[in-house]
């Protein structure tokens, strides 16, 4: 069967000068215009502008062309924009091919304009070769499951849940720990508003739990998942928390007074100990104790005098479905290596999250600043521990990479803690060792100014020559710090202090399993990677999965909740539609060529999207994922992936290598 070739319109973008500073756009246009099958070839300063798009629309409406090539930036940025132009002109949106002459030409062959121009000609010619063979396709229609799934119940996840439920949507919240709130619950007063972190949380949690549209699974892990935009499924394994009744801390203490208190309390970052049945703080949600099954010993059961306990670590598997997924799995504070700035070897070296717990009224020392039961008269903060690291200077993580990113919230959090210490203990000497002070957010700079007023002494260190920390050995203070201070022309300073606080950065929590299940992209910094910070914020490349909060990168609460609201709004966009439409890039059988060999069925054994009917292969459209394994084994060339066919690829390849004399 011969198919009619399309008349192709080719549109080449200058991208300001991003492309045209390197590629001779007019030479490409003039060359392409002469190719067989190309009906028009035009150029524009910005093809994505409304002017650029109108050019395409007009040529389609005037009947000059059937299919379109846009030669510009990477397709992931503006595919939607240009499909919109085709759609407005009444054309099928799949009659579009893009040629990437920015990221893959002008930005990578900057120093050889002639070679870059030739390569652009070759790539655009190949795109035109595909475009002349494109066919109109129909997207696959999926009925939307009107429910949002949010994974992670920290402040970002809770914000996303609340926004969705407020708009009338059903939401499922999956939280790994037995309690809601995430890391925010471990904070005391938060910058820049100085509100109590728990007040913020309580308000949000109250709204969330009062809404019947919200279903919460605590103590729950995602163990499997799948589906696609509009209809995802997530399999959860929920472990029974071991208790069904509400307690306050005093009642719980009475009930478990005979249990040993020998487990490092993660809520206080290991500064205190707890028992194998626990609640993190008075008023936590839910105020129902949880059994820590990993540390609970069978004999512990006999030592408990309370009602509502059942010591069976039963697990239940629950499957939920939803039209979109929001990931809000948060961060872990950077864990300094043993001996890094004396951490783990000198007891008077702690991290900022630990100090925040020490200063909290319900913290391990009830808010008194003491370390090893000694009062503290001098403190030094060291910024950028585990952030902005330099290869060769700092220890890499197990993946071999250092954390070269800025953790953003730590500068202001450090200054807030330093100010609070100074205001509580005016006689305390406070030193602040920094690389740069990055109090970038609204209301953050005030903390820096206040620190100067509070006579906090700043010393600036060179990241290539960081401070050294060692025990003072017999001196009055516990720790000695040596640092070259750039503010005094690199003079070497020796400080003796009672306490060193390492302002540790943020790292993503380990969510390998979820990354694996949904094939999620991570950035070089290991955080989940949004498609584009300006064009598609909070969206992942996997359509229908959104990001909220610090699983995407270091953020403070203001930013984490803003991202969460954005993710909820984008989810709502999907969930509020009865149907969503998926790309039709799935296998299609040419019945005239199919002889029913069944080879494709064997090849598709993992997915099972093909069956034989009346001697012909038949594709299950909702199961087929478009991998194309079946294509390669068909001896009759009877299967192709719609939109990515072998004849189209062959046509591209045949037109790519234009002889040099023709290119000139």
């Amino acid at each position, binding site marked *: 069967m011969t198919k009619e070739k399309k008349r192709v319109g080719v549109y080449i973008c200058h991208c300001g000068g991003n492309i045209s500073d390197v590629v001779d756009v007019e030479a490409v246009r003039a060359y392409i215009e002469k190719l067989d099958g190309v009906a028009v070839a035009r150029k524009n300063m910005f093809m994505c502008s409304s002017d650029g798009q109108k050019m395409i629309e007009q040529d389609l409406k005037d009947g000059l062309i059937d299919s379109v090539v846009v030669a510009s930036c990477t*397709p*992931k940025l503006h595919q939607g924009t240009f499909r919109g132009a085709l759609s407005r002109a009444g054309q099928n949106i799949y009659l579009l091919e893009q040629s990437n002459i920015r990221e893959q030409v002008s930005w990578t062959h900057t120093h050889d304009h002639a070679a870059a121009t030739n390569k652009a000609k070759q790539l655009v010619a190949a795109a035109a070769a595909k475009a002349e063979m494109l066919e109109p396709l129909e997207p696959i229609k999926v009925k939307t499951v009107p429910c949002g799934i949010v994974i992670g119940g920290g402040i970002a996840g809770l914000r996303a849940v609340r926004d969705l439920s407020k708009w009338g949507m059903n939401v499922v919240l999956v939280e790994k720990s037995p309690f809601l709130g995430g890391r925010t619950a471990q904070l005391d007063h938060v910058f820049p508003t100085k509100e109590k972190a728990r007040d913020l949380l309580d308000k949000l949690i109250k709204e969330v739990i009062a809404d019947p549209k919200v279903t919460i699974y605590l103590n729950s892990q995602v163990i499997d998942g799948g589906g696609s935009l509009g209809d995802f499924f997530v399999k959860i394994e929920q472990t029974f928390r071991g208790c069904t009744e509400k307690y306050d801390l005093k009642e719980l203490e009475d009930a478990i007074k005979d249990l040993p208190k020998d487990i490092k309390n993660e809520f206080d970052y290991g500064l205190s100990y707890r028992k194998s049945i626990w609640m993190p703080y008075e008023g936590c949600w839910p105020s129902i104790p949880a059994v820590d099954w990993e540390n609970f010993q069978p004999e512990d059961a006999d030592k408990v005098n309370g009602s509502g306990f059942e010591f069976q670590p039963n697990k239940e598997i629950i499957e939920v479905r939803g039209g979109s997924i929001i990931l809000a799995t948060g961060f872990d504070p950077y864990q300094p290596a043993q001996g890094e700035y004396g951490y783990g070897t000198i007891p008077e070296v702690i991290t900022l999250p630990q100090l925040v717990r020490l200063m909290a009224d319900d913290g391990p020392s009830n808010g008194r600043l003491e370390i090893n039961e000694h009062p503290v008269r001098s403190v030094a903060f060291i910024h950028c521990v585990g952030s902005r690291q330099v290869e060769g200077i700092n220890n890499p993580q197990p993946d071999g990479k250092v954390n070269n990113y800025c953790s953003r919230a730590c500068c202001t959090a450090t200054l807030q803690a330093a100010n609070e210490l100074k205001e509580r203990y005016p006689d305390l000497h406070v030193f602040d060792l920094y690389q740069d002070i990055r109090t970038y957010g609204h209301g953050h700079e005030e903390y820096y100014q206040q620190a100067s007023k509070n006579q906090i002494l700043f010393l600036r260190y060179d990241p290539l020559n960081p401070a050294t920390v060692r025990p003072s050995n017999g001196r009055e203070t516990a720790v000695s710090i040596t640092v070259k201070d750039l503010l005094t022309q690199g003079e070497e300073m020796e400080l003796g202090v009672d306490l060193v606080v390492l302002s540790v950065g943020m790292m993503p929590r380990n969510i390998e399993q979820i990354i694996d299940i949904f094939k999620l992209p991570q950035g070089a910094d290991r955080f989940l990677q949004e498609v584009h910070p300006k064009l598609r914020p909070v969206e992942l*490349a996997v359509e229908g999965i959104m990001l909220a909060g610090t699983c995407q990168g270091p953020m403070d609460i203001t930013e984490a909740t803003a991202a969460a609201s954005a993710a909820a709004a984008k989810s709502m966009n999907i969930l509020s539609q009865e149907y969503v439409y998926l790309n039709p890039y799935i296998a299609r059988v040419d019945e005239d060529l199919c002889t029913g060999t069944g080879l494709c069925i064997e090849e598709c054994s993992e997915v099972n999207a093909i069956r034989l009917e009346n001697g012909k292969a038949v594709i299950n459209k909702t199961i087929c994922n478009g991998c*194309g394994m079946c294509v390669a084994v068909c001896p009759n060339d009877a299967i192709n992936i719609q939109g990515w066919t072998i004849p189209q690829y062959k046509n591209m390849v045949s037109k790519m290598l234009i002889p040099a004399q023709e290119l000139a």
Partner: protein
Amino acid sequence: MTKVESSYTPNILLLSTIDCAYPGADWAGQMHMDHYVQAFNLRVPSPAMFPEEFYFYCFEQGFDGILIMSCGAECPYPGAYDRLAKRVDHLYKMMKERNLETDRLRLTAICTVCAQAYVKEIEDMAGNLKTLPPIKKALGDIPQGVN
């Protein structure tokens, strides 16, 4: 036969996966990493779709080398990477039978941020191909000694 580095500019076809290597190539662009020019990306859902015959077609069209830039272990399609790896083994056998150097074909995995690896693979293959005759000569389309 001793290998001599020749002055011709080999053409390399890159079969780059939409989910991994193609964004990796974009990342190399975003980082402005200048590299060997005559390497051309074909955006593919999964290279597992190409039959053996497609590779020989590409050689015949004048590509001196083909780099399959897959997702490796990150492949989003169940079973596709293993099948692709088997196909490449089979291709090597077929190439040997046809007296084509197996250095002309390489299967590699490039992630979305593996810009450095992406560039290195291209440079390495370009370097290797320069020690081989141009593909047209290898296929016997043009007589030995003529470039």
